[in-house]
């Protein structure tokens, strides 16, 4: 096989990679293939996050989702780090201080509450899984930190889920306490469709619609799952450009070294070694 056909195959492969975060293990094939792809700002290879969108998404998370869903891998300081919502340092301190964090034990052996600091992890709505289940009819709201990578379809799936609440079709048996959802596997979930138009206050003029909430919080969840995405794309561009130039140089170098073997005494070319 020649280096040329290798290059062609490689090019095809690169094109295939332009799809955001697909998993080969999506063996529930029908589900993943029916999923509508949304347009996101962060698709590879050059995608970035939209700071304003992430900031709105954080507000949706905090005002609505965080009532039930923990996000224990995130710290308040992450909200100010590059590649994310990039709230200013002052805002990060304020957002942290708005949360009451459990700390301790103090000198008397008691746990106590204090305002959050940027270095603190996000406050969880429940102290443990059992409390979470007790408050939600036995269902455990999953931690959202890496949810966008823990579900095939990623942010497309999350968006479809949030937009997928409907009245159940007439022939569908809905178990008690469950809610019908078009995107959820099995079509019924313990999570109610809480988001409504106008529910979360947006201050940047973006329309307060369910669609925008769903988009913004899905993008936010992509960031919480992959906070280094922007850096990864940026470093990736540099590395790939370097490697491409390097490949050309190495190819020319290889040809230069092999000249004695490829050019015969009478000047005719021998078969180039493939």
């Amino acid at each position, binding site marked *: 096989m020649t280096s040329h056909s290798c290059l062609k195959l490689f090019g095809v492969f690169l094109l295939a990679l332009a799809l955001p975060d697909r998993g080969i293990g999506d063996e529930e094939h029908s589900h993943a293939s029916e999923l509508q792809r949304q347009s996101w700002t962060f698709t590879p290879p050059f995608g970035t996050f939209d700071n304003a969108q992430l900031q709105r998404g954080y507000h949706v998370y905090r005002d609505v989702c965080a009532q039930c869903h923990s996000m224990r891998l995130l*710290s308040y*300081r992450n909200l100010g*780090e590059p590649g994310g919502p990039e709230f200013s340092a002052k805002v990060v301190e304020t957002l942290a201080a708005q949360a009451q964090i459990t700390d301790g034990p103090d000198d008397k052996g008691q746990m106590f509450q204090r305002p959050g*600091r*940027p*270095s603190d992890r996000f406050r969880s709505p429940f102290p443990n899984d059992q409390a979470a289940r007790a408050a939600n009819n036995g269902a455990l709201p999953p931690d959202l930190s890496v949810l966008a990578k823990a579900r095939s379809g990623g942010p497309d799936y999350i968006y479809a889920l949030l937009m997928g609440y409907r009245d159940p079709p007439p022939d569908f048996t809905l178990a008690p306490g469950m809610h019908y959802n078009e995107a959820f596997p099995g079509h019924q979930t313990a999570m109610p469709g809480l988001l409504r138009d106008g529910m979360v206050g947006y201050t940047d003029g973006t329309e307060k619609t369910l669609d925008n909430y769903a988009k913004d919080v899905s993008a936010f969840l992509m960031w919480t799952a992959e906070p280094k995405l922007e850096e990864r794309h940026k470093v990736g561009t540099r590395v790939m450009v*370097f490697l491409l*130039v*390097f490949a050309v*140089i*190495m190819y*020319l*170098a290889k040809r*230069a*070294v092999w*000249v*004695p*073997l490829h*050019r*015969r*005494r*009478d000047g005719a070319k021998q078969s180039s070694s493939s």
Partner: protein
Amino acid sequence: MASHENSLDPIVLDDEDLSRRDVILIAAGGFTAIGTAAALWPLLDQMNPDASTLSLATTEVDISPIEVGQAITVMWRGKPIFIRHRTAQEIEQAKATPLDDLIDPLARNVNLPDDAPATDENRAVPEREPLLVMIGICTHLGCIPIGQAPGQYKGEYGGWFCPCHGSQYDTAGRVRIGPAPQNMYIPPYSFTSDTKIKIG
């Protein structure tokens, strides 16, 4: 070796071939070196303190609950920080000590130049003399001196006493009896308000 008639023998390169070859080979070598160096950097940098450690590099302490004569210990970068609200008497004692009596004449205060003398003013913050903030680690071999809690033996100079080898510190945290060679260090800190200090 096969005879020169064998058309498989490598031909001799002419000067044009050689110089073109040299340029490309130098480029190839250069790129290899750059690539290796670039790959090496993350391998080294990953050992530096990570973001979660760096976020704990500063600690804010509310000093308003500390009564006169009381001391608290807080952790900063894994080290104990002694914060003592000194009595007037303790401040007097520290100020009255001639510098020649000190084992270590330097302030050891990172907020001041290295050669600042160990006067009481240089050990505390001007206008906030009652508050002494020190890294509570004995400069001999690293034990944590006692004297923070009420009732603990504070040594002959009323400051701190190190139980490991008997070093004794005065009310400004300066070593008065060895074997410790230096005064306890003052960490980088500043007052963010009348009641709060930020360490680090």
